[in-house]
């Protein structure tokens, strides 16, 4: 059918790779299972850079359900490529056992992450995690791992707060943090449009030199 581009979001890790290996079209991964979410990673990087400038040496902590998060992996690859220091924070039951092999630090307590980081990327906690036995209750999750204003006020410096959405307000993040002065969550949404336009633009054959360079990097 000579399709130019396929944008695929799929519940199985590796599904876009499967497709890309078998069709001629450009395949854009819009999120695959618990693997990657590349455009979310790019928009997070754009948002961070617009506030922090160069990310070289900056400290970014990804908080929450890293085990089941495709956002976390794309963030880790992207941030490390730009020279940032990356950490993850959450209950051990929601972190992959081999997470340190990805070159990140691990914090068991949200307070430690707050004390360390320049920015926190707070992940959504899906409700079914409790049902499948990864955590005891959403209530306790909020009490121990939730990003609350009280915790944030004890931070040694101003932190940038990101969240890929949709948020569970009152679980992983409280509303007064999500809507507070350090939150750049709405900016992420805006940047998401720009980043996805750019990806489509490049893969549509515009600026071929840039597109080829990107392909060469990912090969």
């Amino acid at each position, binding site marked *: 059918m000579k399709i130019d581009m396929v944008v695929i979001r799929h519940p199985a890790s590796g599904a876009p790779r*499967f497709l890309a290996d078998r069709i001629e079209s450009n395949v854009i991964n819009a999120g695959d299972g*618990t693997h990657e979410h590349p455009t979310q990673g790019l928009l997070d990087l754009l948002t961070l850079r617009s506030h922090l400038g160069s990310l070289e040496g900056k400290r970014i902590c990804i908080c929450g359900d890293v085990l089941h998060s495709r956002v976390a992996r794309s963030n880790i690859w992207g941030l490390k490529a730009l020279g940032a220091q990356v950490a993850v924070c959450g209950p051990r039951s929601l972190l992959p056992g081999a997470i340190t092999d990805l070159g990140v630090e691990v914090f068991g307590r949200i307070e430690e992450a707050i004390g360390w980081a320049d920015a926190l990327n707070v992940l959504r906690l899906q409700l079914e995690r409790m049902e499948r036995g990864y955590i005891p209750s959403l209530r306790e999750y909020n009490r121990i791992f939730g990003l609350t204003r009280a915790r944030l006020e004890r931070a040694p410096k101003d932190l940038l707060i990101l969240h890929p959405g949709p948020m569970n307000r009152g679980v992983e993040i409280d509303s007064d943090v999500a809507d507070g002065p350090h939150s750049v969550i709405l900016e992420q949404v805006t940047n998401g449009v720009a980043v996805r336009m750019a990806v489509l633009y490049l893969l549509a054959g515009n600026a071929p030199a840039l597109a080829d360079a990107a392909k060469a990097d990912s090969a």
Partner: protein
Amino acid sequence: MTAPLFLTGGRLVDPSQGLDAVGDLLLIDGKVAAIGGTIAGPEGAHRIDCAGQIVAPGLIDVHVHLREPGREDVETVATGAHAAVAGGFTAVAAMPNTRPVTDNQATVSFVKRQGEAAGFARVYPYGAITVGQMGETLAEFGEMVAAGAVAVSDDGKPVENAHIMRTALEYAQTFGIPVVEHCEVMALAHGGAMHEGTVSARLGLKGIPAEAEEIDVIRCILLAKLTGGHIHLCHLSTKGSVDLVRWGKDQGVRVTAEVCSHHISLTHEAVEGYNTNAKMNPPLRTARDVEALQQGLKDGTIDLLVTDHAPHHYDEKEREFADAPNGIVGLETALGVNVTWLVERGVLTIPQLVDRMSCLPAKVFHLPGGTLRAGALADVTVFDPSRSWVVDPAAFKSKGRNTPYGGQTLRGRATRTIVGGRLVHALDG
């Protein structure tokens, strides 16, 4: 009666009688008539020059899935037994996770008859441990053994109920058969699709920890210790399992164990790119596990090599990794893989390899064969350990094409396979 077969000038390797010497082998009326030295071949014998080749007791694979009855589109007893002889195996034991499950004398005898009708490798049926492999009620071991079952297993999944496993280990003693366990704690494996480690973390695939296997390994060893029964552990994949079996053997427990050719040759890195032909259960593990499995095989902790030959339809494997079925075909690559990874790298000698692919499977499962003593079954494998060949799945006799070795160059290949004195496979015509 077929003409006598007269195999001349090969290297006769038969660990069952401590034989490793160049000499002749004469097969008459389905039996070994004479072995060793220079033999005067009788008139009319079909002479096969085996110079430069290994002449060994027929290889036996005690862990294959032949899919019949139920999934004849994927494999039949006949195509599986044909694949077996093409790979140098003169006998296979077929797992009972068929549809319907081989959990009764009628189905056992059906599988056995299909094997006899096919006329390739000998096919020894397994019976299920529990009715329908549901883990609740013991299947009728006695009737199944009378119909030809050589062991019982619920392979594909474990017998999760420890009381049922205990009872199986007790009850099987009447019939002198091993109880064969697929070691896995399903609740801990929790739907995982590959080994839990660096690669699963990177690929975002749910992992199966090594402990999901090891906890069942030690449970089975302890139940064998309790009952005095013979437990045989399927397809070990982790270093921890090797250590636990070594402990069990040191304690005098009747535990035997097997390892698959893929687990001594490949690691979880093979999954990279979401390669569904590297998906099996138990999964490919780490280089450290591969090393421990090789050492376990060398020091005798692991008794024998198997394939866990598991054909799947192309369409079933051609999909998302997490949803693809477990298993790969192995009958036509196992000898080459074993020679390439074990013999060429100095882990096993040729006689040790023959021991673990023929003599020990026969001994552990009380099967005929595994020896070339005069009077024994004329089941013989002739193979060239230095022959290089490229794996071409399209050329398999098996209906299954699902192999991670496609396109790879292996060393070591069967050139003649003889079952009951009949030449049933000859490479190069």
